[in-house]
């Protein structure tokens, strides 16, 4: 039970239809106030009534992004544009109730919004061929408040040219392909995988933005995956996005926002000493760091003009034991998803972290710092076969370690895949 107390009279809290979400300051500023105090407590109405096995509690006045902005694709058709977007995952008491699409013929709006319900695709029809349309997708919570807004995506419907399909979405007539854009890390490498294999590698600009085009593709379903490498060679988590490409149309995919890279300076730290949590992301942004503990902790750290961020965690804030930490970033109303988690241990000794952190910790069977078709093939060779003695140490170190090769080992490889 969550009780709420203040210097006001208790009956001021009677209301019909409200929830206290242990307060979360959400986007859209509907929780701002200049003159209130909030006290939280946990109690039980009668002795023994509030026992629980396993519950999570977040206390204090927290601020952290609650939902990652959706990635949107736009495929132009004849008088129409097909939009699809990644599902928004909300947290901390929030649930996604549905989506709105904003449509304009001028970049930046004003947009005319239409409610779509809880779906992840929509076809906008009755559009004028040859006119560029601009769209944004807004995710709403159950009460109809906006909790995430995508970046703008554009497409230009074009009349069908007989059997040749249509052009649009920024590409020329007859070309089948995809334009991908988003944010990585300043002047760092961004790798795009097409169906699990490297299609193109590019470099993000000083503002961390990247844009690539892949053409000469055939129509069909593709799974694009994107990851970045920061200036120290640390890789981001893999961001995947399925898309269906239409013959003769270039599909635009915008709003890809790679999660910050993250690392720690110590594998194990003496309780009471600081541990540095650092990485790289978009320049001049705000990084939210989550530290998994008995009580999950959220802290903020600013990223400098090169995108580097650092947070020194006072380990007296967490209990002794194993912990993980992960990060997400917010800039210009865009919010990345959380990235990979890194582990550390708070105990009785200090062990510095290794320097070779850019290699995938698992799945890299041949030691080339990549997890790709070669590692998959080596693993596949031992599928349904008893493991050779000399291969067992590698299976233990880089796969599940259960002494056999099965689907679990391939799943581990898929998670750490680099192409």
């Amino acid at each position, binding site marked *: 039970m969550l009780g709420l107390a203040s210097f006001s009279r208790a009956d001021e809290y009677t209301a019909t239809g409200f929830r206290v979400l242990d307060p979360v300051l959400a986007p859209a500023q509907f929780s701002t106030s200049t003159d209130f105090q909030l006290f939280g407590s946990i109690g039980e109405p009668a002795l023994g009534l509030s026992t629980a096995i396993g519950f999570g509690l977040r206390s204090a006045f927290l601020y952290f992004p609650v939902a990652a902005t959706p990635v949107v694709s736009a495929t132009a058709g004849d008088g129409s544009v097909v939009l699809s977007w990644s*599902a928004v995952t909300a947290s901390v008491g929030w649930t996604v109730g549905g989506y709105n699409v904003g449509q304009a013929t001028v970049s930046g709006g004003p947009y005319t919004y239409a409610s779509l319900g809880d779906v992840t695709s929509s076809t906008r029809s009755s559009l004028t061929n040859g006119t560029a349309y601009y769209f944004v997708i807004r995710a709403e919570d159950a009460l109809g408040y906006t909790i995430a807004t995508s970046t703008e995506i554009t497409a230009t419907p074009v009349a069908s040219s007989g059997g040749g399909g249509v052009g649009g979405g920024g590409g020329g007539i007859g070309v089948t392909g995809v334009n991908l854009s988003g944010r990585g890390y300043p002047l760092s490498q961004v790798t795009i995988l097409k*169906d*699990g294999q490297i299609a193109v590698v590019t470099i993000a600009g000083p503002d961390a933005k990247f844009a690539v085009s892949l053409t000469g593709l055939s129509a*069909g379903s593709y799974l694009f995956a994107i990851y970045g490498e920061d200036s120290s060679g640390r890789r981001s988590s*893999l961001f995947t996005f399925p898309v269906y490409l239409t013959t003769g149309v270039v599909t635009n995919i915008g709003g890809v926002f790679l999660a910050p890279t993250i690392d720690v300076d110590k594998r194990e730290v003496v309780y009471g000493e600081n541990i540095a949590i650092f990485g790289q992301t978009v320049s001049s942004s705000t990084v939210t760091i989550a530290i998994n503990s008995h009580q999950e902790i959220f802290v903020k750290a600013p990223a400098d003009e090169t995108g580097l961020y650092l947070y020194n965690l006072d380990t007296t804030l967490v209990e002794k034991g194993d912990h993980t930490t992960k990060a997400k970033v917010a800039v210009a109303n865009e919010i990345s998803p959380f990235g990979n988690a890194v582990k550390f241990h708070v105990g009785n000794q200090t062990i510095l972290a290794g320097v070779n952190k850019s290699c995938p910790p698992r799945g890299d069977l041949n030691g080339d710092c990549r997890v790709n*078709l070669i590692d998959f093939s080596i693993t596949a060779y031992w599928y349904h076969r008893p493991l050779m003695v000399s291969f067992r140490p590698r299976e233990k170190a880089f796969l599940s370690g259960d002494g056999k090769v099965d*689907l679990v080992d*391939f799943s581990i490889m*898929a998670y*750490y895949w680099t192409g």
Partner: protein
Amino acid sequence: MTKLFFEKDGNLVSLFLDSPDQAVNSVAGEIIVPAKMTVRQIQDANSLINFWVDTPAVKEDKIIFAGIIPGGYQDTGGKILSFLLATDSKSDFGLIELGKIRVLLNDGLGTETAVETSSIIFQPTDNVLASLEDDIPPEEFAPLISSDPAIFNGAKFLVFQTQDKQSGISHYEVSEGDYGSGEHWQRAASPYLIINQKLDERIEVKAVDLSGNERIVTAFSPSGDYLDYIFLSIIIIVFLTLCFFVSKKFFHRS
């Protein structure tokens, strides 16, 4: 909730995956087909699965499959595979079911998640074997040569993989040697143990889709290496010759 379900289009049955709330990266299982039905063709065109661990194949009235999705999948309506069914009689019908399904989370640990599955009743239509309209070859790909003490006793091997978005990949063939394509093509699977371990001859890989379209790529070409060796040899010979004459002249003077 993660779900696996069938959809039927004529005599083509497709298996789809929904996982809107959590990312999954591995799917395995079997499709149980009534004994009175025949699986005429299995198609992996437009499959979510990028790498098959168990390439879909019929074994004892079941289609066995297992594969992975690098980076994971969190969306709805992702196709796993399709198959064409035929029956002796148009009046035959039966239940197509899923068995031994395993779906693993994209969490780096291979955690198995609960899956809701559904069955479908199949009855053939007139269009027993729909023809595939496909004149597009499989996609470009780049085979890799590697070696590892864990497989083939450390011998060099070849790995390859591509997609075909129209009908799906039928099979691969490998040609070793400089005699051109044709008689040297042999059906092969990845990883492929290279016969010519000296790597002094061309190696090509051919991907063939279910409509017979082919994509041939070169996995290894020795010509560049030969040129390098010849060029290096010429430089060494010229250098040694110059050294010989210079030293001869020097010693002659002294």
